[in-house]
């Protein structure tokens, strides 16, 4: 017993004291200043009890972190999403996509609005002329031997139903007329009438065309 007592000396070293919980927490979270780190490290190297405290504290901190992380996430999910301003919508990818779409739309609109030139020289039955469906047509019809002056023009489908009608005239042996686009594929007839009806109903000439999607 006397020997045991002789082992002990009173040491006035700060590292002899057990660090408080805040110090241990700072140690575990790597937030100790150099002097505090020295005290805590020197102490725990030789203090089994404080190592046990550290292990428990480490476990508790880990559990607290997990709980806080989960809690913060659940709070964030529960919060209503703030309505973004119009400007926040304008991101680079969205703007790029919108620009590309607009350019494509403009090109497509321009393309389908431009009339296609069609020269018809043959009479009905002699030849099949294929023209573009969905595109307006700029017709150049053979007007040789036709009387000068105003003429009526009709476009009828295969069943004889009138699709379009207008007036025109012969210039330099040609009849020039623009007709709107055909929306259905099939056979159509272009008929030229005299403005003065006679026994034949005034029909002067007829052309045949076939429409189908052509670009």
């Amino acid at each position, binding site marked *: 017993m006397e*020997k045991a007592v002789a082992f002990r000396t009173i*040491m006035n070293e700060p590292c002899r004291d057990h660090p408080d919980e805040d110090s241990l927490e*700072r140690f575990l979270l*790597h937030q100790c200043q150099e002097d505090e780190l020295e005290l805590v490290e020197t102490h725990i*190297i*030789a203090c089994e009890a404080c190592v046990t405290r550290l292990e428990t504290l480490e476990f508790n901190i880990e*559990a607290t972190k997990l709980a806080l992380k989960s809690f913060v996430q659940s709070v964030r999910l529960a919060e209503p999403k703030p309505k973004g301003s119009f400007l926040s919508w304008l991101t680079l990818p969205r703007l790029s996509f919108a620009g590309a779409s607009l350019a494509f739309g403009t090109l497509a609109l321009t393309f389908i609005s431009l009339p296609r030139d069609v020269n018809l020289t043959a009479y009905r039955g002699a030849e099949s002329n294929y023209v573009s469906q969905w595109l307006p047509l700029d017709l150049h019809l053979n007007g040789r031997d036709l009387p000068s002056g105003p003429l009526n023009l009709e476009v009828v489908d295969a069943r004889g139903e009138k699709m379009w009608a207008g007036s025109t005239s012969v210039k330099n042996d040609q009849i020039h007329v623009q007709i709107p686009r055909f929306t259905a594929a099939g056979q159509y007839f272009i008929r030229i009438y005299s403005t003065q009806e006679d026994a034949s109903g005034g029909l002067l000439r007829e052309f045949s065309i076939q429409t189908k999607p052509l670009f």
Partner: protein
Amino acid sequence: MVATQSQLSPEPSPDGDHQTGEASEKTSKAGYPPVEWCVLVAQVKAGEDAGMEQLYKLFSRGIRYYLCRQLGPQELEDKVHDTFLIVVNAIRRGDLREPERLMGFVRTVVRRQVAAYIETAVHNRREQADLESGVTVADRKQNPEQEAMLRQKSELMKTALAALSKRDRDILVRFYLYEQPQDQICREMDLTETQFRLLKSRAKAKFGEIGKKKLASSGIFSVLVRA
């Protein structure tokens, strides 16, 4: 007779949750067990088994913990053994001139060991990057039982968190989750150092209290107490 630490030291409470500020104060005052460093160093120097045994008992747990924390559990026993060999050899050579500084001396040796292991690991990684790059990664994973306990505890803590005030919760989130330093929290939350300490300890105490109530109501507490 060898006076070991466990015989001499009134141990502080290991449960951080239950420890109040008062208890913590007591703990700090209780202090580390007085050990006759001169005698211990003399015994080690003389190669006496008693001295070696006491040295090992005194420092093995702390050294093991420190090395494991810094380097991971790989080859831990070897590293602890190497550290002891260095300490013992240094004492025998008479490198430790002031025996009362043995704790600081051991700490310095351990820190140097950690630095040396890290340096070796870095060197090996450079040399054998393609072959064994994973060898030096510290694995601090808990075992499945500890993982389950951790999850269970965090679930309970999560329910307890909802009962805290926003301010209290904010302090805990900043300190534990985001690991913000104390001065940053004080600055951003407009708190003095004392206010921060008080608020944090109050939040933790409340947190622990609510957690205990939840545990008790769920019936787990009695099981844990028995365990």
